[in-house]
């Protein structure tokens, strides 16, 4: 089964080279989809191997797929597939001569993320994470506008600096491992309990590494690059970044947490991750209240969800399966949303929320999946985010972190209300053509809602249409989905059912959590 360890790295790279070479756009555009499929396929193979109690390794243990890695690789593949396939309809605004590099970079990006989750070496993983910054830098700046350039600059500077901090932390962890006689950066070795690691160095190294990777994970206060980058990148790239790049960084945090937990106990990182998580929720809540741009809205929602995952990570063992399920649910949902947001941006021509109105009447083909995905995102069942959030919150209280999850709930409520308001602003309402009638209705109903009446008022009866009264059919709505529907259906369908699959998903989650010292 070891070949499945190199396919997710090699296939995308080969496809990337091919897409630089192949001049046929139609074929070239399929390369990222094929790369994602390769990653997903490898991930599923590795999952089956893991479930059969194997741990495939390659390159002298440099690449290793335990349950967690296999799971994360599957998530990368699945989210990649949704983003790239769903993004096929997305017209890249860039000149044609860069189009090849766009497809190539996405493939390399996927390979880099695969490497990051498969590497058994922290240093290698660090290099892979830094490689994701490098590949996505041009993707963020792909549109070559002033704002995309601005976003790309901020992304690279803030991202690299953050990851550099992580490197500092890794260096300290490496220094701490000198006590074992054979300094190492292997996850497998370092996660073992009872190693003679220098606790002070581990604490500092762990803290710095977590802080560094928190930048890539979009956790406050290191999140600042995220809204800009997500809003400027082409939609499929935003989907990939939000859906899995953040999750890969979280994966790194979880791995480092395992190392530190074994040496200094869980308390230190628990406090740090709680603060980061709550701060992320707070930032997301504060900036969602009056958000004006729907892609930024999605970006802040990513910060929120990463914050929630960080809280879950802080809680530790009891919440880990929920956090891992969260990664999948959030990845698929957010990828779907970014894909749709790209389509909305394309057909509406504006990223502003108040520029997009009455979408449900005008373009049900876009609004319906958007609404369903938003419902999934804000945590409605049967979508898996619901289970993850409930799982994390119950686990939090059980672990004695009631105050933290209590605050989290308050912030989640604000976020929920804001997201609902913004979504409703975008989708609900009557289109401009029937605004006059709608206004009359609004006026009349406002009177009704305020329980008001006009005693002896001169009756100029407004034409009121009660909710039970027949409605005039709206002008011919646009039912087109503006791109492939199937990936969206698959993504949403998967998140809807995945939480109900005890076997093998449940087992896989349990084993992946066990790798992190979770439930055995």
């Amino acid at each position, binding site marked *: 089964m070891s070949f499945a360890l190199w396919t997710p790295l090699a296939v995308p790279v080969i496809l990337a080279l091919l897409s630089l070479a192949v001049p046929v756009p139609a074929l070239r555009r399929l390369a990222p989809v094929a790369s994602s499929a390769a990653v997903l396929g490898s991930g599923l193979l590795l999952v089956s191997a893991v479930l059969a109690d194997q741990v495939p390794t390659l390159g002298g243990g440099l690449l290793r797929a335990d349950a967690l890695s296999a799971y994360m690789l599957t998530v990368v593949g699945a989210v990649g597939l949704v983003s790239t396939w769903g993004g096929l309809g997305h017209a890249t605004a860039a000149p044609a001569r860069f189009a090849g590099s766009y497809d190539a970079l996405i493939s390399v990006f996927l390979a880099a993320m695969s490497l990051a989750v498969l590497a058994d070496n922290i240093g290698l993983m660090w290099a892979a994470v830094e490689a994701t910054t490098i590949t996505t830098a041009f993707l963020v700046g792909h549109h070559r506008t002033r704002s995309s350039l601005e976003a790309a600059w901020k992304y690279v500077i803030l991202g690299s600096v953050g990851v550099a901090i992580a490197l500092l932390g890794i260096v300290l962890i490496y220094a701490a491992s000198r006590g074992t006689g054979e300094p190492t950066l292997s996850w497998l070795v370092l996660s073992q309990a009872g190693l003679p690691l220098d606790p002070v160095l581990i604490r500092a190294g762990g803290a710095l590494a977590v802080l560094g990777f928190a930048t890539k994970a979009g956790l406050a206060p290191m999140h600042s690059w995220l809204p800009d980058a997500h809003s400027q990148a082409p939609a499929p790239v935003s989907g990939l970044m939000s859906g899995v790049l953040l999750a890969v960084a979280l994966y790194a945090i979880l791995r480092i947490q395992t190392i530190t937990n074994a040496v200094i106990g869980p308390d230190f990182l628990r406090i740090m991750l709680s603060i980061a998580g709550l701060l992320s929720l707070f930032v997301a809540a504060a900036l969602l209240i009056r958000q004006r741009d729907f892609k930024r809205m999605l970006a802040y929602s990513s910060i929120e969800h990463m914050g929630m995952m960080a809280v879950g990570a802080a809680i530790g063992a009891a919440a880990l399966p929920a956090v891992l399920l969260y990664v999948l649910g959030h990845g698929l949902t957010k990828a779907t949303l970014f894909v749709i947001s790209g389509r909305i941006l394309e057909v509406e021509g504006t990223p502003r929320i108040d520029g997009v109105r009455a979408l449900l009447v005008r373009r049900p083909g876009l609004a319906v999946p958007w609404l369903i995905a938003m419902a999934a995102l804000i945590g409605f069942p049967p979508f898996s985010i619901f289970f993850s959030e409930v799982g994390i919150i119950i686990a939090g*209280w059980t672990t004695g972190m009631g105050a933290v999850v209590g605050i989290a709930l308050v912030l989640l409520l604000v976020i929920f209300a804001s997201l609902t308001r913004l979504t*409703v602003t975008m989708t609900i309402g009557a289109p401009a053509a029937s605004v006059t009638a*709608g206004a009359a209705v*609004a006026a009349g109903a406002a009177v009704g809602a305020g*329980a008001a009446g006009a005693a002896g008022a001169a009756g100029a009866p407004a034409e009121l249409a009660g909710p*039970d009264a027949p409605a005039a059919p709206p002008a011919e709505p646009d039912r087109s989905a503006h791109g492939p529907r199937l990936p969206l259906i698959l993504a949403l369908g998967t998140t809807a059912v995945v939480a109900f699959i005890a076997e093998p998903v449940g087992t896989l989650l349990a084993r992946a959590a066990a790798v992190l010292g979770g439930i055995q």
Partner: protein
Amino acid sequence: MTALEAGMLGQVLLLALAVTGALLVGTRWRSRVIGTLCALLAAAGIVTGAIALFGGEGSLTIPTALPMDPLVLSPDRLGGLVMMVVSAVGVLASLFGIGSARVASASRTSWVSMAVFLFGMQLVPAATDIVSFLLFWEIMTLGSTALLLAHHATRGTVASAIVWYSAMSQLSFFFVLAGFAVLAAATGGTGFSGLATVDPASWQASLAFVLLLLGFGGKAELVPLHVWVPRVLPEAPGHVAAAMSGAMVNIGVYGALLVCVRLLPNGPAWWGVLLMALGGLSALYGILQASVASNLKVLLAYSTTENMGLVFLGLGASVLLRADDATAAADAALVAALLLMVSHAAFKATLFLGAGAIARSTGEMNLDRLGGLGSRMPWTAATFGAAAMGAAALPVTSGFVAEWMLLQALIHGSRVDGEVVSVTASVAMPLAVAVIALTAGLALLTFVKAYGIAFLARPRSPKATQAREVPVIMRVSLVLGALGVIALGLVPGPLAVAIASAVGPAFAPDVRTVGLAGVDARGIDAVLDPTTFVVLAALLLVPVLIALFASARRHPTRTSPLPWAGGGSRLRPRMQYTATSYAEPLVRVFDDVLRPSRDVEVTHVGESRYLVERVHVEQSVSDVIETRFYRPMLNAAQRFGILARRAQNGSIHRYLSYSFVALLSVLIVVSL
């Protein structure tokens, strides 16, 4: 597979059928096909509930990917009762919905959500653990929110209603989640049977109780979490409003019952006081707002707050009295609360369906523009009238029996064998009686106004003049609802006995059937047989009718287009009292609470200061709690949202500073 399991599986199956059907069937047949399927889904709920109520066994396990206690569905008797009630309303709502063709509520979205909504609602009472409870709770919320969505294109105010509703629902959900989480933390499991081992005297139990009360109170539309109600229900079509206000609120009550009866029975006395205070406040505030409302659906919506307030008042009295060892009265109060819940479901569903019928025929919900519908829509008038009697707690409807029992429990509660049980109880009980009395009085006014202004006298607008009766299927639904109201009022005995068995085994109210189907609450010596009562009334009616016919034979009735009418020579519909003017004295009396805003505009004739051409009076009563409590918070949040943008002002130096400060902080912390 047991019957119970088959029933639950049947609901799942019917949901799947209804959802796929709604997506496939075309506009022409959709309402009929899917409406029938929804009605069947709800009927399956009734059957399942009945099986559970009579002690059926069986369970369904929902698989889950997360390693938690299994998600088991297995309704107990209490759950079965609630499931039955909720499903019965669902049947009515579905049948009524069939009649809505070619409108927004016949759309795909609407029917899919209707099925999902009913399904979620029906299975909440089946849950035996936290996660499945929350799962179906949220499915219910999702379904009801989506139901509102179906109307967005025709009504501009739907958007704000959806936002309010979702936000308040989520608030409730989070309260419930937090409350359950506290209990789960105290016991280490998520199954209800495990949670029931928490000591009610512990602080965890109290914290959980308060959180859960707030959560369930929100769903039950209690003050101050009711703010969504007057916004949402007027936006929903009649049958949806019926399902929400008639059925969904019961899930809130069920939640409270779950806490007070199943999980944490024998709680401390202050729980009861809290419940009673919340309930009493809701009852008074709700009915006060209802009594001055001119929009029929707003009126009904606030009346729900009132009734749920009374249910919680009863529940609170039960908890308080139980803590004071006045067990018989406590049990009677509990039974009364449940009776009220059941009867409320019947009459409120019918009332909202009636409102839906009016809206369908006239497109008008403002009572000030209705009138004279009694002769134009006789079926609607009769059924609405019966239900209104229920809502006003007049004999011999279901509402009357429930309130009677509640009052009986309260007056027997403060003393056991002549001894005062506790100071708290002796203060709380009379106050509760007074609250119920005032509430009942105002409810009477409210529903006299609603019925009298809408159905009696002459139409106040052209639309009301042209009103026609609704289609047969809607009438069927209305009649079924009204029959329910009257039947529950006439034969409350078996229901009370069933309720008494449902709250067992922790509670064992000694309630029996007496006479034909009357209630005999042994513990508090309270007996009532509505049937005998009706027989007596009928006997008394006989001589009156004889006299009537004797007189009528010789002196037939004459009709006159212009009766005395204060001696006037012309009589226009606008000279009639309207709903607003009807409530005017009350608005004045409760001026301090309602804080109405009045706007009087006088136009003079020419230059004269004495001759008035016209007077324009506008009065509006807004929800004080919304304007004084929620608005300031929302405004503050909005201001904060604008302020917070500065944190993300685009300066990379600022962003780098955040990282830098974070790095320095971490360095300092690790070196401490």
